[in-house]
């Protein structure tokens, strides 16, 4: 076929495909994103796309033709607004890398915050008893070095790493009782000890834990390579053993060896220098657009490693960054909006996924008996909660655009009831004073602060990490509200590493974190803020009860019956195959939390600024921002492009 004809056919075909997509979306368009994003991506064959094009960037790189690099029947992703054009370098800061190109897993998350969609897998299905999950991989998927992605890679990662006690002495909770086998090169079967209906959620949210390129890492794995050879390699790279090396590879963004490691993501590390991480498009990336163009659109990403927030904000507000989200702060929206008028950037206001920006926790397992008695008293927690003027906080910190609420799931969750969010949020200092008086906490020496019933001094230390949400400024307000009802609180900002160590050791008197896991993606499988089943930096108020649960009663402290009930409900919720039963259990858990105020919430679903440059297109105007959905995963960052 002569060249012009090919081009003509291609353009006709792509226009047809586009038309089809658009027609579909017009009829069902409801939210700020195409309704199609809620369904499994159509394949090229379904849409009749037979010719594929690639970025000019990839030409003359001695690569196989694009059709051979793509899978046999690539998934087609509908861009938000229009079909993009290839090329360009996107400038971001390193912290936004996970937001600018998502992890690619077997399955992925839809923007409704509920639905799990196939991704690398072409389909997945559960057995009726929920004990078997079968996934079928797309045929012809390839790692960024051209090596095929097969069931082998998953078997290697799950069976020889995650379930290998040399690699992980203690298996991750969500992998306990999991077995993986392959029926053939493309069919994977996970089987579970108990019904595990939400394992797909976990797979979608943490895809990086399931797949490492076997052909690369087998050179570092003792099952495949002589230990002495590995030892020499480790010596050279400075690692003490092979598991430290692979563990680092899985977690470290700055790890220089990433340049050598194959990936399935849209971009691959090209160079990691002290100040700048450069990523280039993955020539074997598996998704295409409706015009048959291989995604992503953008060729290069240059991510500066910026620590200081002033620099990050300065760059974002003056249009020097194409995308910026993770370092943007609610308080800086006016500045960014000013940048919008002066520098032509676009400031989209998303909503943070956090049920509450703060989850204030008093340690119910605290070693000091007197304070522990206080913390255990529900009147104390309720008093602290209603002593907070959330409306004023909302005005002062959130421009009145957040939602005063307790730590609970988002309104669109199946498990939500309005009173879970509103319980004990009405500002009532008089009632708070009455509750505290009733407990016998009286200001004996008239210094303005209450003392213990026996007259001894009563102050609380509240230590926390300033990260993600506006915690310090919130706590300055909360401190003043609590001081107003006679509670003397001393806050101190600490480093993140200390937060973790002290949280799991139960050493905090009081601390706080931000409350995510509020969507139907993570809540049903990990209701961590509401049930003591996990040790984490974010959960410092009942670590001993969690430890008891995790070690089967060997360590920690046996929880009281109502807490054990909670744990039982949670266990049942994540294993029940009956959706109605699950919702019932989930609501019971949340109702108990609303009643007992085990952690105190402030403002949730807060406005979060996301800054894009004038030339970056196809980014949604509003969305949910947070961990549950890996920030941008449902919004298809691979379809973002730079307008010329």
């Amino acid at each position, binding site marked *: 076929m002569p060249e012009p004809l090919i081009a003509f056919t291609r353009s006709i075909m792509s226009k047809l495909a586009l038309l089809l997509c658009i027609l579909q979306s017009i009829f069902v368009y409801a939210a700020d994103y195409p309704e199609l994003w809620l369904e499994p991506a159509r394949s090229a064959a379904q849409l009749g796309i037979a010719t594929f094009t690639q970025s000019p960037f990839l030409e003359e790189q001695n690569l196989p033709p694009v059709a051979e690099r793509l899978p046999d029947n690539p998934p087609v992703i509908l861009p938000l607004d229009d079909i993009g054009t290839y090329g360009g370098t996107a400038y971001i800061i390193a912290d936004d890398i996970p937001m600018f190109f998502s992890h690619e897993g077997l399955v992925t998350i839809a923007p409704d915050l509920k639905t799990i969609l196939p991704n690398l897998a072409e389909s997945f299905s559960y057995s009726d008893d929920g004990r078997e999950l079968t996934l079928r991989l797309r045929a012809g998927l390839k790692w960024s070095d051209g090596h095929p992605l097969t069931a082998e890679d998953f078997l290697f990662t799950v069976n020889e790493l995650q379930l290998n006690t040399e690699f992980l002495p203690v298996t991750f909770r969500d992998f306990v009782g999991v077995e993986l086998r392959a029926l053939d090169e493309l069919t994977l079967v996970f089987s579970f000890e108990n019904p595990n209906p939400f394992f797909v959620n976990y797979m979608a949210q943490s895809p990086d834990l399931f797949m490492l390129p076997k052909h690369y890492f087998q050179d570092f794995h003792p099952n495949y390579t002589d230990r002495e050879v590995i030892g020499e390699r480790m010596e050279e790279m400075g690692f003490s053993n092979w598991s430290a090396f692979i563990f680092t590879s899985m977690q470290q963004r700055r790890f220089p060896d990433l340049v050598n490691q194959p990936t399935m993501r849209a971009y691959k590390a090209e160079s990691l220098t002290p100040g700048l991480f450069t990523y280039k498009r993955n020539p074997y990336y598996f998704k295409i657009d409706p015009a048959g163009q291989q995604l992503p659109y953008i060729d290069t990403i240059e991510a500066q490693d910026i620590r200081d*927030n*002033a*620099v990050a*904000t*300065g760059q974002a*507000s003056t249009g020097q960054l194409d995308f910026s989200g993770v370092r943007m702060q609610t*308080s*800086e*929206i*006016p*500045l960014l*909006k*000013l940048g919008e*008028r002066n520098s032509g950037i676009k400031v989209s206001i998303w909503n943070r996924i956090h049920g509450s920006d703060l989850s204030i926790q008093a340690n119910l397992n605290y070693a000091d008996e007197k304070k522990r008695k206080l913390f255990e008293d529900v009147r104390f927690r309720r008093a602290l909660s209603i002593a907070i003027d959330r409306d*004023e906080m909302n*005005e*002062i910190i959130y*421009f*009145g655009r957040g939602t005063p609420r307790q730590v609970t799931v988002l309104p669109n969750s199946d498990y939500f009831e309005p009173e879970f969010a509103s319980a004990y949020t009405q500002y009532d200092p008089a009632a708070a004073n009455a509750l505290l008086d009733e407990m016998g906490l009286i200001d004996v020496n008239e210094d303005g602060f209450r003392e213990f019933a026996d007259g001894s001094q009563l102050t609380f*230390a509240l*230590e926390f990490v300033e990260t993600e949400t506006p915690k*310090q*400024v919130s706590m*300055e*307000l909360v*401190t*003043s509200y609590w001081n107003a009802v006679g509670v003397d609180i*001393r*806050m*101190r*900002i*600490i*480093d993140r590493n200390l937060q973790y160590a002290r949280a799991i050791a139960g050493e905090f008197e009081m601390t706080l974190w931000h409350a995510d896991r509020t969507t139907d993606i993570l809540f049903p499988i990990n209701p961590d803020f509401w049930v003591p089943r996990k040790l984490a930096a974010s959960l410092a108020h009942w670590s001993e009860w969690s430890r008891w649960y995790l070690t089967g009663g060997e360590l920690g402290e046996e929880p009281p019956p109502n807490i054990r009930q909670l744990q039982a409900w949670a266990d049942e919720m994540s294993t029940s195959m009956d959706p109605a039963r699950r919702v019932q259990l989930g609501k019971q858990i949340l109702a108990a939390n609303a009643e007992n105020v085990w952690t105190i919430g402030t403002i949730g679903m807060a406005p979060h600024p996301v800054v894009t440059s004038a030339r970056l297109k196809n980014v949604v105007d509003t969305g949910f921002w947070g961990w549950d959905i890996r920030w941008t995963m449902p919004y298809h960052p691979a379809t973002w492009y730079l307008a010329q």
Partner: protein
Amino acid sequence: MSELNELTPGQLAWLRFRRHKLAMVAGGVLIIFYLFAIFCEFISPYTPDQRNARAINAPPMDIRFFDADGQFHPRPFVYGWELNINEDTWMREYQEDTSTRYDIQFFSRGEPYEFWGLIPTERHLFTVDSESEGYIHWFGTDSLGRDMFSRVLYGARVSLSIGILGVGLTLFLGVLLGGFAGYLGGVFDNVVQRITEVLQSIPTLPLWMALSAALPAAWSPLATYFGITIILSLFGWTTLARQVRGRFLAMREEDFVVAARLVGANDRRIIFRHMLPSFVSHIITTATLAVPAMILGETALSFLGIGLRAPVVSWGVLLQQAQNYQVIVMTPWLLLPGAFIVITVIAFNLLGDGLRDAADPYSSLSKT
């Protein structure tokens, strides 16, 4: 000419100091600042943590004598402000409402406080009627609606005292170690010399950081304050010790010391009665020049988030809260504590210059 005879060395020094106009001015400024710091509860119209939810990030207010019609009022006043949050820009816009006028009242009632933590009172130097809707924020307000003027004053108390306290400690260490090293010589001198050398070879920042991070979490703000002061002075004494040692070495051989020793005075007496007084002026000067280093050190620690922390109000803490891009562009009045730091540091330097010239018995009085 003969009047010169009657001048004591102190009077001569004062004459020389007075000639230093800038130093005089600097001294005056510092006296005012320290008065501010001492009487901050009274001078400030609000307490440092008092919030005004109707004035968040409000710019400095104009204090007026002339109203909108150009009419003069003997009593200064401020206009009321209307707050409007712009839906598009998300900005809090403040508009003067010339129909509401709030007179400034002096020695009037306001937020109750305890003067020096002892005397409970509610009198402030100036306020607007606390019963009314009005408020006065001369330096504007911060992101929580707290009065910057009050906060700067309360911050002065911490920052200025940290300078003096820290230098006091530095002097104590420097003079003690340097003095004994210079006077005794030998092994002791050698040890001090080596310690000095070691401390001077390590970048101070990591030392500060590690020590600050090691301060126990449970410490009260006051204890942390003293901890930080000690950390700051722990590494400042080396320079002073070197100078003192040098002086002692030179002086040890001088006639009056030799004479004292021959008479049989013991070492301590010789050091404290004879040698120390002879360079007190030098020490005072060095101390004056060291105060600003302490104040800047506190700021640097606060910048790194390992110095003093809220709710303690110091200039460093205030500036740390202002160290972002938004402040420079949109709320520059939050940088005012920085201006006070700059003025204080300059003033101490000029004062130190003046004192040095005054204290130097050889400095020339001739006019040029």
